[in-house]
């Protein structure tokens, strides 16, 4: 009964190997999955604008499927479903000499999170591209720039301004969504807490303890994001950018979706 301060402090602030490993796993998984999501999202967004109907169709199908099914199902589908489909296990406990931290469950969860994220990023990037004035592409074309150069040098850099705020929200989300990986046995923060109270039968203290870490991570990210957005505003005379504290205190900044598990 009651809140045991000693257990909370002990779990949260005793700097030990399992805690460091769980923190590393959470951060690494979030970063890798987000990077994969950005790459896949960019491909899907560009694919969706392609004149080639096959590429366009595949991009549409990808976004439709991964936005339309739960990410938890996708993680489980990849980790348990894929081996039974393939007839061998692409997700063993450990890969050769790689650290155990980067095992099969970690890989499966990261891939699933990243592939899921790509579907959302595709919509964000698409909206960013559409936000750039059509005169920009015309000016680039009139200078003899190819469609590829026009996109990479003129359109995308300007689209970034529109893409980065929701991208920041996505990564904030990703930091927390990694907790789903606990269901396939990835020892990230949530499973670390669960392991703890499995022995102590005191779930409240470690769970609040990992909330401290999630808050720390999302708060730090908020700082980084603020700087990033300021930098992207160069030359655009937009002085109304919300500061860090304003951002922290407002909930969602126009992301196409917000919050938790989808």
């Amino acid at each position, binding site marked *: 009964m009651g809140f045991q301060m000693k257990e909370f402090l002990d779990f949260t602030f005793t700097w030990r190997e399992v805690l460091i490993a769980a923190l590393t796993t959470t951060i690494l998984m979030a970063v890798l999955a987000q990077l994969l999501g950005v790459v896949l999202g960019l491909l899907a967004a560009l694919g969706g604008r392609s004149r080639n109907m096959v590429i366009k169709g595949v991009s549409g199908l990808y976004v439709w499927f991964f936005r339309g099914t739960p990410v938890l199902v996708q993680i489980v589908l990849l980790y348990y479903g894929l081996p039974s489909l393939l007839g061998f296990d692409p997700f063993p406990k450990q890969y050769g000499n790689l650290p155990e931290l980067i095992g099969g469950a970690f890989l499966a969860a990261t891939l699933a999170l990243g592939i899921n994220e790509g579907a959302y990023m595709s919509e964000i990037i698409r909206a960013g591209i559409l936000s750039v004035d059509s005169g920009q592409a*015309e*000016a680039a*074309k*009139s*200078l*003899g720039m190819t469609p590829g150069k026009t996109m990479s040098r003129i359109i995308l850099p*300007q689209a970034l301004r529109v893409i980065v705020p929701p991208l920041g929200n996505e990564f904030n989300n990703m930091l927390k969504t990694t907790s789903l990986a606990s269901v396939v046995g990835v020892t990230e923060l949530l499973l670390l807490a669960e392991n703890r109270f499995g022995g102590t039968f005191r779930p409240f203290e470690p769970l609040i303890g990992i909330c401290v870490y999630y808050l720390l991570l999302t708060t730090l990210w908020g700082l980084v994001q603020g700087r990033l957005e300021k930098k992207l505003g*160069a030359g655009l005379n937009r002085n109304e950018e919300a500061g860090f504290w304003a951002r922290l205190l407002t909930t969602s900044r126009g992301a196409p979706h917000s919050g938790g598990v989808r």
Partner: protein
Amino acid sequence: MTGHQHATDVAIGHDLLDAAGGAPTGSSEVVVDAQHVDKWFGKLHVLQDVSLQVKRQEVVVVLGPSGSGKTTFIRCVNHLEKIQGGRIFVNGHLIGYRDVAGKLIEDKEANIAKQRQEIGMVFQRFNLFPHKTALENIIEAPTQVRGMSKDEALEVGNALLQRVGLAAKADSYPAQLSGGQQQRVAIARALAMKPALMLFDEPTSALDPEMIGEVLEVMKELAREGMTMIVVTHEMGFAREVADRVVMMDEGRVIEEGTPEHFFNNPTEERTKTFLAKIL
């Protein structure tokens, strides 16, 4: 180059074309040859059998009421718009299409991009790249498209900025420049590709009145140096003073064509007279 009243803050007097690395050589060869161009926007027949030839070093001003197709026409010249009939040649090259047994098949993007390198365009709304400084705007295409070294491009870019009177603004972003300054940078940006032809799409229509002069002055200088130009504008003073030929369009057709003297003093077409009466 005298005889004109100069706009206040534009210090011209050097060759715009020299800044870009040399003027096209003068001769009477045809640069633009538009033959029987037809274009529809859906059911609207916006260009109807439009034919126009522009010779090297010639300045052609296209006039006409809004909706007459003049802007659409020059956008077809660098294939920003597709055409459904006729042919447009620039320096002898069929623009935007391959002629396959008399049928127009749209060319590959890479080939069209190559053709556009020779055709500069200045837009009504400037369309400078807002994430790049004035100088970066100018060197973008020479370095990325022509493969010019950055040092060389910077040299060309700075020289061009000097020529349009904006040497001090090299590091300014478009949002920090006035409309007139932005348009002058846009002209310099187009010139940096050393085009054989410049298209101007109502270059002063989006400007505050006090900035129109500085842009027209740059264009006049360019014309004097022998640039081949097609200019869509409502600036009658510019047409009268600079144009070698004035073309009047209405309802998608060229209805009258002639020297400024003919055009402004005794136009033959009734619609031209009505238009001029409204605008002068």
